[in-house]
């Protein structure tokens, strides 16, 4: 007898739906990361996992624990907020790092820095 057994059927269905949605989106994101050809395409792939992938699993967990423990379980909200706010920072840094490295190597596929006057006093 686990906590999950005590859920009413409609809630079980909802939890199952969110679990499948979240994990499938994360899997699709990772699959994109695996098979897309260029870095700038791949940078889009993990956002599937960090937006609705995370939201789906967290909603499933939130519903389950709130029902079982009989109070709103908010750890999920904190984790969700944390992921939501931190992923953009990581991806922006990575995007800038990739641009910087590609420009330094002289790879022709990235647009040049659009302010030429900045080249002299390069502000990262």
């Amino acid at each position, binding site marked *: 007898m686990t906590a999950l057994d005590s859920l009413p059927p409609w809630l079980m269905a909802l939890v199952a739906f969110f679990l499948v949605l979240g994990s499938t989106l994360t899997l699709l994101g990772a699959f994109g990361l695996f098979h897309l050809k260029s870095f700038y395409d*791949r940078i889009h792939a993990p956002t599937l996992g960090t937006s609705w992938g995370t939201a789906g699993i967290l909603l499933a967990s939130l519903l389950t624990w709130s029902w079982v423990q009989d109070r709103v379980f908010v750890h999920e909200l904190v984790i969700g907020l944390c992921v939501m706010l931190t992923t953009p920072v990581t991806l922006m840094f990575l995007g800038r790092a990739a641009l910087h490295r590609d420009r330094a190597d002289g790879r022709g596929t990235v647009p040049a820095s659009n302010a030429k006057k900045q080249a002299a006093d390069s502000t990262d």
Partner: protein
Amino acid sequence: MNTVLWLALTWAQIALAVAACLSAYRIAVGPRAQDRVLGLDALYVATMLLFIVTGMRLDTPFLFEAALVIAIGGFVGTVSLAKFLLRGEVIE
């Protein structure tokens, strides 16, 4: 446990494990350093979600704390790696 929920939990665990493996492939293969860091970012998110799903299955809320630590630690790790990629070569 209800069959539908059992199937959903199993599917979620398998899908997240496969997602973690695919991200690990990207870390191993690259080809460039930014791809590896991107792989690390995807890996920690998949692992964190796997912890939460496993916590639901094992009926323990304690894996949440672990998930929260992974979320914060993964963020700090990937940001500092990205920052290194951005700065490390400026100095060179």
